[in-house]
């Protein structure tokens, strides 16, 4: 087996490259370069901060240095008097709240009466240059009245007053949920072994290379254009219309190419709204580029999550019941937090058969930067706990952890206890590949002290089944325009954040129309010019825009086929589209060029344009809370990490990762491999070093909001990665494709934790696994204490009554069971 990660090629499971009808594929499955690769590699791509417009002003936001306080007064007079300053605004100028979720409209572009974390913006200035804006910002005087600061989950559930927000579940609890699927007591009674474990997953942040930036231009026709580095132009469009009180039709949002998103640019942001308002007031273009420090405070990254997991298993490792509790430290605002809370309890059931399942989840407000979605959104934390607990269960049962997992996989084409519909399911093949590739059987529990291997698996959604706001419209739309000279233009609202979504559109349309992907003009993420796509989040883009593009392209091919068949006097079904030609398969010389085909079609039908759209299938779950978790398809990953642990310093070196990923089908295997390796890289950072932590003096100041001390792996920490792609086409994916942007991150952290245990016999039940924690656990072990570092308990809270749903196996219909009135 090749050990060089760059030369191991693309491993295919099925060994062929044909579509569902057996037709050979010319573009799909081939490692084409990205359509935007050359501009990116040569520095020609124009990011938001590269935009310079005539008469452009620069904006700065004054941010609170108090973590929790009432704004007594704001004096902007000195800033306004500074030469070169054209506008100064405060919260009262933008009083309408917003937020990504309809249930959490709890943010203001500038704080109105209260600040909730260090970094919350209270005023903004527009000036002729950045230095003047900065100087003016520092001339604004704000008088605060301090409030008690709430800095942790434990404090938030204990301290009811002051409340950080006046909505939620009371006190400082933002959301609490309690779902029960099946009879848990019966499940635990059937178990031969029940384990209860507590885990903690520290928060971390996205660390995109590009800081957020935006340029707004409110023009003389009262039309507003915003160029911004965002993953969700459609949602930004909606937030602007709401907060600015403008007709959406007068607003155009253009998402600029993203220099990294990872979930950190998925919310509408205050700076985006602020530059629009400053432009409206000054009638000049206004730019803002956040500093790296501001990016740390904007955050919306991984929630810190404390978890308690109780799992019952039979002697052979079959799970009989699982009771999962999670506590999320949400930070100061709602953001995606309600969805994040549900995600910490949703996907436990799609990897292994879990016949009975209970989930209790609580999200707390704290005076820290708000948390939100980061790659894997709400699922890496529970996956870490679950996979480490399975490793402990396997050891107690004296089972090989790989064998145990293989034996109890969730079946394909099934519905889980919590009503998630699984389609294709390639986890077994992923496990087999990495077990064989890593020589697991000869390594696990057999390597010398200090060396170890660990295995973990995971699954992720291929797009959220429901949109952020309730509607019955498609999640993704594509328009195709065919030019009589053979040009093809794709228009779609999706935004390429580096994952290659523009390229995927081109590959799919090129495949269907038999042309070269580089003949196609891809126009995306412009709300004036492109139909809505909900955005680059939840690993939805390849599946949803891909299906929409496929539909639009097939409709265009149909029009062309009719016209060409007429001209060639050939039956339509005999026509093939390939090599920029449309021809008779029985007589390939008989045909026309693609451009001639468009001319024939345009002559017959008029201007040729088609549309395609995609709406995910309805989920079988009908209970309240069933909206988070359903997806058209689930990707699967299995990883084995091999580590070296230095017992002298506690330093963990990950030497190699073998990872199998069930991609359904690779639209472009090179991009898939890139995403897998990128996921492993980000996973190593989360596993070993990255953490968003705050000074403990109750001021909730970030300890190190800079790339100097917020440590993320360098090239020296990046290990060899051996990737195995499992291709088992999913019926819901375009050409069978599933996601890869997020899933492969998930197994890395638990695989490393399990490998550390294999190496030195200590459990670090907490992420990141730092040298300090490893050494502390080793010391505990040497002193005869439990060989473990991690949390010991969870707060005692009163959970709401369980919403009970019978499982499919119990004959449930996906609806909540009627609550039985108790008579006393």
């Amino acid at each position, binding site marked *: 087996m090749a050990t060089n990660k760059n030369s191991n090629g693309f491993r295919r499971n099925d060994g062929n490259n044909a579509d569902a009808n057996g037709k050979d594929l010319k573009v799909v499955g081939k490692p084409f370069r990205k359509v935007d690769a050359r501009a990116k590699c040569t520095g020609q791509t124009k990011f938001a901060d590269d935009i310079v417009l005539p008469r452009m002003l620069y904006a700065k936001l004054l*941010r609170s240095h108090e973590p929790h306080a009432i704004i007594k007064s704001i004096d902007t007079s000195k800033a306004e008097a500074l030469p070169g300053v054209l506008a100064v605004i405060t919260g009262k100028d933008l009083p309408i709240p917003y937020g990504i979720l309809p249930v959490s409209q709890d943010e203001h572009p500038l704080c109105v009466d209260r600040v909730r974390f260090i*970094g919350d913006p209270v005023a903004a200035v527009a000036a002729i240059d*950045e*230095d003047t804006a*900065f100087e003016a910002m520092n001339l604004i005087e704000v008088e605060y009245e301090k409030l008690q600061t709430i800095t942790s989950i434990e404090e938030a559930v204990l301290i009811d007053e002051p409340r950080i927000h006046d909505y939620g579940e009371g006190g400082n609890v933002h959301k609490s949920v309690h779902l029960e699927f099946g009879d848990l007591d019966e499940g635990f009674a059937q178990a031969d072994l029940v384990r209860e474990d507590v885990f903690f997953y520290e928060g971390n942040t996205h660390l995109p290379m590009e800081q957020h930036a935006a340029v707004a231009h409110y023009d003389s026709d009262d039309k507003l254009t915003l160029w911004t580095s965002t993953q969700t132009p459609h949602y930004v469009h909606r937030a602007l219309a709401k907060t600015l009180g403008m007709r959406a039709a007068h607003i155009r949002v253009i998402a600029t190419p993203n220099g990294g998103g990872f979930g950190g640019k998925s919310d509408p942001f205050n700076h985006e709204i602020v530059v629009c308002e400053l432009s409206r007031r000054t009638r000049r273009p206004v730019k803002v*580029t956040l*500093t*790296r*420090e*501001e990016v740390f*405070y904007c955050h919306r990254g991984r929630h810190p999550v404390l978890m308690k997991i109780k799992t019952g298993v039979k002697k052979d490792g079959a799970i009989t019941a699982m009771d999962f509790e999670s506590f999320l430290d949400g930070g100061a605002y709602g953001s995606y937090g309600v969805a994040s809370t549900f995600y910490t309890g949703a996907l436990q059931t799609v990897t292994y058969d879990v016949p009975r399942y209970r989930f209790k989840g609580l999200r707390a407000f704290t005076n820290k930067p708000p948390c939100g979605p980061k790659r894997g959104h709400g699922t890496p934390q529970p996956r870490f706990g679950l996979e480490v607990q399975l490793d402990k269960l396997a050891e107690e049962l004296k089972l090989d952890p790989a064998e145990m997992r293989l034996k109890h996989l969730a079946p394909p084409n099934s519905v889980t206890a919590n009503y998630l519909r699984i389609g294709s399911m390639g986890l077994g093949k992923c496990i087999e590949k990495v077990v064989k590739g890593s020589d697991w059987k000869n390594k696990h529990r057999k390597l010398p002290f200090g060396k170890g291997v660990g295995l973990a698996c995971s699954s992720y959604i291929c797009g959220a089944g429901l949109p952020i706001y309730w509607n019955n419209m498609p999640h993704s739309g594509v328009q195709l325009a065919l030019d009589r000279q053979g040009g093809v233009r794709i228009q779609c609202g999706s935004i390429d954040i580096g994952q290659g979504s523009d390229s995927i559109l081109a590959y799919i349309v090129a495949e269907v129309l038999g042309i070269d992907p580089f003949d196609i003009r891809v126009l995306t993420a412009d709300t004036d010019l492109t139909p809505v796509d909900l955005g680059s989040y939840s690993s939805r883009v390849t599946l949803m825009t891909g299906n929409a593009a496929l539909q639009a392209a097939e409709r265009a091919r149909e029009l062309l086929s009719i016209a060409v068949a007429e001209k060639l006097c050939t039956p339509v079904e005999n026509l093939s589209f390939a090599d920029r030609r449309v021809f008779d398969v029985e007589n390939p010389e008989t045909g026309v060029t693609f451009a001639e085909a468009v001319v024939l079609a345009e002559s017959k039908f008029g201007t040729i344009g088609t549309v395609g759209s995609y709406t995910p299938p309805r989920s079988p779950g009908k209970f309240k809370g069933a909206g988070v978790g359903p997806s058209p398809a689930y990707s699967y990953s299995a990883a084995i990490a091999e580590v070296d642990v230095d017992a*002298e*310093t*506690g*330093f963990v070196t990950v030497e190699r990762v073998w990872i199998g990923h069930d991609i359904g089908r690779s639209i472009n295997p090179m991009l898939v491999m890139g995403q897998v390796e990128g996921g492993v890289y980000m996973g190593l950072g989360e596993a070993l*070093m990255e953490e968003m932590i705050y000074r403990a003096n109750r001021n909730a100041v970030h*300890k*190190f909001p*800079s790339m*100097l*001390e917020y*440590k993320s*792996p*360098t*090239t*020296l*920490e990046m290990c060899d990665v051996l990737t195995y792609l499992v291709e088992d086409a999913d019926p819901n994916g375009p050409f069978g494709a599933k996601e890869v942007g997020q899933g492969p991150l998930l197994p890395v952290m638990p695989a490393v934790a399990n490998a550390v245990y294999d190496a030195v016999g200590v459990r670090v039940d907490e992420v990141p696994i*730092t*040298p*300090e924690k490893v*050494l*502390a656990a080793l*010391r505990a072990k040497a002193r005869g204490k439990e060989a473990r570092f991690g949390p010991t308990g969870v707060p005692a809270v009163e959970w709401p009554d369980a919403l009970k749903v019978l499982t499919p196996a119990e004959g449930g219909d996906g609806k909540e069971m009627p609550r039985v009135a108790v008579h006393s």
Partner: protein
Amino acid sequence: MRAYLPGYELVVPRDLAEALALLRDEPGAWKPFAGGTDLMVLFEAGRLAHRKFFSILQLPELRGVEETSEHVTLGALTTYTEVQRHATLRREFPMLCRAARETGGVAIQNRGTLGGNIANASPAADSPPALLAYDAQLELISAAGSRWVAYGDFHTGYKQTVMRPDELVARIRCPRPSTNAKQYARKVGTRRAQAISKICFAGLAEMFDGRVAEIRLAFGSVAPTVVRCRRTEAVLSGQKIDAATIRAARSELAVEIAPIDDVRSTAGYRLRVALNVLEEFLSRLAANE
């Protein structure tokens, strides 16, 4: 929160005399700027009071590596990259080369200088423990003349040194270690590059007849300054290295250093790793590795 630099003045003196005259005429006002790898970070973060800088990177008097039979003398402007590439240093001063290799990343190694690392006086700097173990001496120069000080006496407190405001570090002189000397250095950071140390160690010893004839132990990031651990050295001096000696040395070191909690690690971790690293060095000495 700023992506903004305050106004500043940067002058380029024609020669060393002109540079020293700046320091003499306005003591404390001018900050010498060599590689700038520390200054640029602090300046951008708004944590540098100075607004007047003069470049010294172009001064040939502060460059070069000279060798005599007794010493190797490095100009203060010797970069980490130059240290790593110098044949004699690689052969005889491997701990210094290792420190240079583990400082920052390639870009920092190309610009950062040994003199700057010393003058910046950070307790977490990478090259000072090695220089302490090599018993280095520093030449400090000013318009008034030059003086040599033992590097072991250079630091007086957190970021405090015996250097006067009108002085520059000119040269670093290290006695060439005996070929019998055993050397062991270890840096522990969060990652293998671009990481300021959690803890940093350099040890040099000569054994004679199974006993410690000479030993020098130095740590970074365990006290307000980089420290030479003379009391622990005294415990070891003249001793055979066995389990009892190692225990005694660990006990002495535990009271001789005073690590703290900070953004990079905890006091407890630093103490434990310092003891473990010392033990590793002593075990290697005992095993004659």
